[in-house]
């Protein structure tokens, strides 16, 4: 059985599945339940300054993008950082950590962008036994208007500055949580590293509005007729998060900086995607909010069985394993030829592949043969775009076949070459020398 134990920025946990800083980690009651269920660690919901706690709305805090059968694809929230008293939170953190010494206890922090404020909150953590801190530079709503959260995360200089304060006033490992609401994710990651961060975590949520009520023409969710953009997360954001994780993992300036992957992780397959693209562990929130804490058991079991099957004994062996396959478009082999193949034995003849190809792509799928409904790829038209395989309702019914070198591409009439040739060398590229990055 594979060992799921991981060490992330020096923090040990029995498995790579942590709960992200969010409503599920707001208080001892929830976190105890999470640890009972088997979570490897938590990032305690963000603490603010001492004094009167912040105030949340008393209307809907959440909105969702649902499939028609009401599976949740996307999730948005306007909840702020903890609205509980700082002392209470600190006492609970200390107590929970005492009771669960083998689990990772990381505390998320967000205070105004002043050295004194950070110094003060860090000093309060010393006696809690917390394993590390996560700097919330990501919250896109509510706190950002007050100069915190994403307002800091969008300015690399601030990130570097605050990170440096934290390293100066605390011995704990510092994880910097990044906002995706920026143009190039590498810049804040570089700034975090420059400031001395031990790790980064990403992504925080994405600015979003869920929709409009058709009857009242009011945005949703709203509180008494007015709404405000919220942070978007859940399965729908995973591809965005994966790209950002891979960007940082591939950047020579941040190479080796541990990454905690966040964004739409709901099962071991999602976790594997993040880990293979460079994350050393993962954080989960939305899936737990939909199904409860027990899902960690299926996640851990799934990952463990996968690792056994593949011959991995430790999670670290998978970290970044897929990164060498990520490159720039201009290095893709333009000599590689794929063609779609429809398995006639499993085809249910819905014709979705045909109409998708006919209307929107390359007119490469038939709709009949001998006067009968029949869907078959016309290899002389197919460019291997994969659309048909994606719209087909039957798993594995349509697949892409790679043509072997020497085989004839019926579309171009040319023989498939065994040589690699990409845009940097392509005769159609007037900049072919300059385009080599």
């Amino acid at each position, binding site marked *: 059985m594979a060992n799921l134990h991981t060490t992330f920025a020096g923090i040990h946990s029995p498995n790579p599945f942590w709960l992200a800083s969010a409503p599920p980690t707001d208080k001892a009651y929830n976190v105890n339940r999470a640890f009972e269920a088997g979570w490897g660690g938590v990032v305690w919901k963000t603490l603010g300054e001492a004094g009167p706690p912040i105030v949340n709305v008393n209307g809907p805090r959440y909105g969702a993008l649902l499939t*028609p059968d009401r599976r949740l694809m996307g999730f948005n929230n306007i909840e702020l950082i903890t609205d509980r008293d700082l002392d209470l939170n600190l006492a609970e953190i200390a107590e929970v950590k005492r009771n669960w010494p083998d689990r990772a206890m990381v505390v998320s922090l967000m205070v105004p962008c002043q050295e004194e404020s950070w110094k003060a909150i860090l000093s309060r953590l010393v006696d809690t036994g917390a394993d590390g801190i996560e700097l919330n530079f990501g919250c896109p709503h509510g706190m950002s208007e007050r100069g915190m959260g994403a307002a800091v995360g969008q300015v690399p200089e601030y990130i570097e500055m605050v990170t440096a304060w934290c390293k100066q006033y605390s011995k704990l490992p510092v994880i910097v949580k990044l906002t995706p609401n920026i143009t190039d994710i590498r810049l804040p990651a570089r700034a975090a590293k420059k400031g001395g961060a031990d790790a980064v975590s990403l992504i925080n949520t994405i600015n979003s509005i869920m929709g409009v009520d058709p009857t009242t023409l009011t945005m949703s969710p709203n509180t008494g007729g007015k709404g405000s953009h919220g942070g978007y997360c859940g399965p729908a954001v995973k591809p965005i998060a994966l790209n950002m994780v891979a960007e940082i993992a591939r950047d020579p300036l941040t190479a080796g900086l541990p990454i905690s992957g966040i964004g739409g992780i709901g099962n071991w397959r999602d976790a594997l995607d993040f880990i293979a693209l460079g994350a050393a562990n993962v954080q989960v929130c939305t899936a737990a909010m939909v199904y409860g804490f027990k899902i960690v058991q299926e996640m851990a079991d799934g990952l463990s069985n996968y690792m056994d099957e593949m011959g991995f004994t430790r999670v670290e062996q998978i970290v970044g394993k897929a990164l060498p396959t990520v490159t720039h478009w201009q290095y893709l082999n333009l000599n590689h030829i794929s063609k779609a193949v429809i398995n006639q034995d499993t085809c249910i*003849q*819905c*014709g979705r592949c045909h109409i998708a190809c006919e209307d929107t792509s390359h007119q490469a799928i038939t709709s009949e043969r001998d006067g009968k*409904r029949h869907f078959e790829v016309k290899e002389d038209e197919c460019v291997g775009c994969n659309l048909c395989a994606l719209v087909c309702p039957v798993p594995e019914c349509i697949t892409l076949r790679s043509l072997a070198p020497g085989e004839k591409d019926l579309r171009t009439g040319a023989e498939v070459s065994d040589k690699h040739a990409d845009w940097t060398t392509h005769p159609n590229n007037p900049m072919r020398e300059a385009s080599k990055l």
Partner: protein
Amino acid sequence: MTTAHQPDIRPARLAQSAYAQAFADASPRLTRSQTLLEAERCLYCFDAPCTTACPTGIDVPSFIRRIAEDNLRGAARTILESNPMGGMCARVCPTETLCEAVCVRNTQEDRPVAIGRLQRHAVDALMESDRPQVFTRAPETGKRVAVVGAGPAGLACAYTLARQGHSVALFDARPKIGGLNEYGLASYKTPDDFAQREVQWLLAIGGITVHHGWKLETTAQLDTLRRDHGAVFLGMGLSATHVLGIPGERLNGVRPAVDFIAELRQCADVSTLPVGRRVVIIGGGMTAVDAAVQSKLLGAETVHMVYRRGPEGLSASQAEQEWAQKHDVRLHYWLAPQEIVGTLDLANPTATDAGHVCAVRFARQSLVDGKVTPTGETEVLQADMVLKAIGQQLGNPLLQQAGFALQDGRIATDAEGQTNLSGVWAGGDCRYGAPDLTVEAVEHGKQSAHAIHAYLVET
């Protein structure tokens, strides 16, 4: 054969409270949640097989997608555009042999999208809304059309013509219009007076004048209709049940199944309807199933449905057969009725039509070299009531007198229903080749209406 058996036919076999449940909606409505889930199962097929299989060509994927998008009005409009009686058809169509039979989900999951139930959801929602009309009648054309028979064919024809701005005189022999929708379908298929509610919806398009209690009986009537109208559509159905041609057919307790069904449909309190303790239904179509199941629901102890050929020849669909079996109707195959036995001394053949039925004697048959051949065995089923569901015929001598070309006793027409008499169309059960489904009658009416419209515009 002699018997002194006393017939047992009486009403109120069940507790009064049991009837409402027995005759409740056979296929209860889908909830909103079920509807959305089911709609989501539709794959929006290219050139959808369900649409091709629908006799009226309803754009099924489009109406289902509209349901999924919370556009029930648009869904209903899509349905009614192709089939103005989409509400009734959603209830009575044998969808398992039409649209749902060819749904690609059968191949994938062994379960089609519940097209019929979705269709009903959409049309019911429209009809129960405060704006039930979706079509506006075109400006009055000044053209007049006579439609004889207000069943599915006649109503569809009248509605389609009226929508195009023509004035329609709709004639029907019965007190209520609707034809077999009103008189010929099992109660549990169309509860809550749906047939009349649909008729009201159709008539609300405007331009249709209804003439009740009018029966086409003389050639002079037909001549008058043709003279006073730009075109005539005949959709009067079939009026006479076929004759078995065996002894005992006129015994008390022997009657056409359609009469039994009609009486039941028009009865305000079904507990007052007499039903036999033991009922034998002769026939294998949907009328046979409707009569058999309803006999059972009225409290009959044993109900036999007897068909002279094998199961594969039965015209009742698989689902209908299962419905019958679920209601404990006993299905018999390969039995041809030989004699209906009465309660009086039957040794004398001349006395066979006296008294009351007490049994039916059947000759067992089998297929020998592709031919139905008697095996020589006979079987007797005890019966207090015998219902004949062996099909109907035109039974109207006028048609021949009027010069209509007939085929197998029905009116011969072209593909759009035009008869050999100029300006006269026919559709529904009275037209030769009619495969006898409600939805096909509707399509007849609709097709002929389009042909009549083209004809009127030209003339």
